[in-house]
């Protein structure tokens, strides 16, 4: 189809510099969607088993909007809006953590007053997760600042940790904020979530508008409950075809970022649709949305469906209203993928868009493997790694570090049987494979952190990691080299000591 239009449409419409977007990949066809020729694909956008939806959430309104536009319209109490409009958005949930929370609180107090109250004690979620298991005094102090503030303000959702020696002694402690937000029912379709962390976009997996902001903006939200936002135009990614058994959502998002570059979605929303996306679990949808910021995206969204509703069933009692893109909504650009033709990928150092096939990097000798973070440290990520170790039966050849995202994930590693293993848990399989024992849940070495952070890269080594960024210094050492990969590829690489296509073990 009209693949040649791909560059022109984006740059002409939105005035960003025309980046050359290679579209030689056989698996990708991109084309503009400004005409009626899309009705066939558009039909898959709303789930067929649709529950009763009021007219405002469906295509029956006159002004067609994307789901991101609709969520923002409702949050700004408008009936319609256009990309580029600046609007005041009512915030449903504000999240902050130990790295940006103290600064946010400082700004809130400075600007609203020492005795000011937050706008809504039940809509602020505070999650210590970054620098927890460290002797760094300032890092410990920052968690204390969060605790004092939450006590003072009677914040309802504060996932505290006091006993750093044994995380299990802290029943409230969760771990990585984005995964905790999902597990604790704070990610709800149709709502607006802002957080002081770039990977807040993770929650778009639930059909929520979720985006990262800075301390100053968060300080404003803390006091006012709203924020001035610009409505983003939407890029749509249509992924159809049966997902091969050796691929994970991480491969899909690395494919996309490699295609559109680390700035390809700057200021834009990314909407993921198609039969492949519909078949993904919630955790896999999170992986997809988690990394939209690595393409510069403002937010990512997956339309809510039965998978979403089932996940949320025992997690929240809040009434939410999912939003769906209208059939004739305007998308800046459409990208169409035949997922059945994709292969396992990595992002080579030092950029998440430095895409290569895993098998093309088979000569890259590695020093370590890291499985963890909001992107790649969820229960299913570890299940996937365990599947590879199980299929191989061999021991890892390089140190393999496992950092569960949350306490719930950690418990799953020790409690859930891995399918096809005869009842073994992930932890047993990891032990048999010679991996390091799964450590306390936190953001860990994904972003380096204090010097004493577990598995931090303190030497200029080569690491295959299920995390999200591989810019220089990301995991600690400035000369370290990080290959971003799926849990399958990470586990396969651990078994060989080289970057390895997981098909060597999974077929």
């Amino acid at each position, binding site marked *: 189809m009209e693949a040649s239009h791909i560059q022109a449409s984006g740059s002409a419409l939105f005035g*960003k*510099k025309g*980046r050359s977007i290679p579209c030689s990949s056989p698996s990708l066809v991109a084309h503009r969607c400004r005409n009626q020729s899309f009705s066939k694909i558009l039909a898959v956008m709303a789930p067929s088993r649709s529950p009763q939806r009021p007219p405002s959430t469906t295509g029956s309104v006159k002004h067609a909007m994307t789901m991101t536009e609709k969520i923002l319209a409702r949050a700004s109490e408008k009936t319609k809006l256009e990309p580029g409009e600046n609007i005041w958005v009512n915030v449903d949930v504000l999240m902050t953590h130990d*790295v*940006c929370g*103290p*600064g946010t*609180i*400082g*700004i809130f107090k*400075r*600007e*609203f*007053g020492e*005795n*000011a109250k937050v706008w809504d004690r039940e809509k602020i979620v505070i999650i210590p997760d*970054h*620098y927890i298991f460290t002797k*760094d005094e*300032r*890092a410990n*102090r*920052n968690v204390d*600042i969060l605790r004092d503030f939450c006590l003072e303000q009677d914040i309802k959702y504060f996932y505290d940790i006091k006993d750093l020696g044994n995380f299990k002694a802290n029943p409230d402690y969760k771990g990585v904020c984005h995964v905790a937000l999902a597990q604790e029912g704070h990610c709800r379709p149709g709502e607006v979530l802002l957080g*002081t*962390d*770039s990977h*807040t976009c993770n929650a778009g997996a639930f059909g929520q508008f979720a985006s*990262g*902001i*800075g*301390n*100053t*903006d968060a300080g*404003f939200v803390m006091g006012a409950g709203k924020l001035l936002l610009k409505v983003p135009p939407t890029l749509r990614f249509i992924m159809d075809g049966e997902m091969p058994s050796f691929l994970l959502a991480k491969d899909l998002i690395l494919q996309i970022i490699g295609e559109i570059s*680390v*700035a390809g979605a*700057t*200021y834009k929303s990314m909407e993921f649709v198609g039969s492949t996306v519909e078949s993904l679990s919630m955790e896999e949808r999170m992986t997809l949305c988690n990394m939209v*910021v690595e393409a*510069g995206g*403002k937010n990512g969204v997956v339309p809510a469906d039965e998978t979403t509703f089932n996940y949320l069933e025992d997690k929240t009692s809040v009434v939410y209203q999912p939003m769906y893109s209208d059939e004739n909504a305007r998308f800046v650009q459409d990208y169409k993928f035949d997922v059945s033709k994709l292969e396992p990928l990595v992002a080579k150092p030092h*950029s998440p868009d430095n895409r290569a096939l895993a098998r093309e990097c088979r000569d890259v000798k590695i020093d370590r493997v890291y499985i963890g973070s909001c992107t790649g440290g969820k229960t299913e990520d570890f299940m996937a790694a365990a599947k590879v170790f199980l299929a191989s039966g061999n021991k890892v050849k390089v140190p393999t570090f496992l950092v569960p995202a949350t306490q719930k994930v950690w418990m799953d590693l020790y409690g859930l049987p891995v399918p096809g293993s005869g009842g073994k848990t992930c932890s047993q399989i990891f032990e048999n494979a010679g991996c390091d024992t799964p450590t306390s849940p936190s953001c860990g070495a994904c*972003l*380096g*952190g*204090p*010097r004493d952070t577990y598995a931090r890269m303190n030497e200029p080594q080569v690491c295959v990691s299920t995390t999200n*960024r591989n*810019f*220089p*210094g*990301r995991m*600690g050492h*400035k*000369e370290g080299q990080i290959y971003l990969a799926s849990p399958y590829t990470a586990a396969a690489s651990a078994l060989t000591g080289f970057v390895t296509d997981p098909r060597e073990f999974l077929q």
Partner: protein
Amino acid sequence: MATAWAPKAVLPSHLPKTPISPRRQSSSKLPIPTCHIHLKTLNRSTSRRPLLTPLAAAAADADLASSEPITSFHGLCYVLGNNIDTDQIIPAEHLTLVPSKPDEYRKLGSLALVGLPADSYPVPFVDPGEITSRFSVIIGGDNFGCGSSREHAPVAIGASGARVVVAESYARIFFRNCVATGEVYPLETEEIGMWKECTTGDIVTVDLPGNRLINHTKGKEYKLKPIGDAGPVIEAGGIFAYARKTGMIASTAP
């Protein structure tokens, strides 16, 4: 090489560019400068202190048509490439520093750009032992400030004494944080490739109202995109200060 362009500007050179508070002073609160000097006389590349930023030009100067405060930036530039992410601007290990605490704000300034790989960037942005940078202007390529949303990044740059970044484009959150904090002017070039033509240590002037950057060392001039509505917000010292100044919120903090 100095160019013929030498506007009359006023230099609050008696003001140390060492912030005493994370709450940036509005330029309008600066003491009215009284001396006039030509920019070409300002080539103090050996100065240990950041060079004279910002230049609050005198509204009283009859040569200047506008009565609006004019801001320009002059001094040494520090040149970076494409996709400079916020981990390179301020590595995560330093995020324990809380920007709203004055002493930690200053510490952040001393650590600005410390995450850059030394083989690509052999000249440190902040010299060892210093708390501010001798470079006044940062020049970058595409997608400056991508990655983590940490507000510590524009804060570190602002606290280092550099008040302006000139790049081809910005990552969204970094741009927003620059404006919200009022720490840094995130200016964009009209055309791509300027960073390839500039060298760290070149003497440059960013002429904000004129929307141009002059590289005196190379004798070249570049067009910049207007900063637009973000300009007054940054000039006021961030969104809260701007909102107070314009009457959007109560004029003093409770």
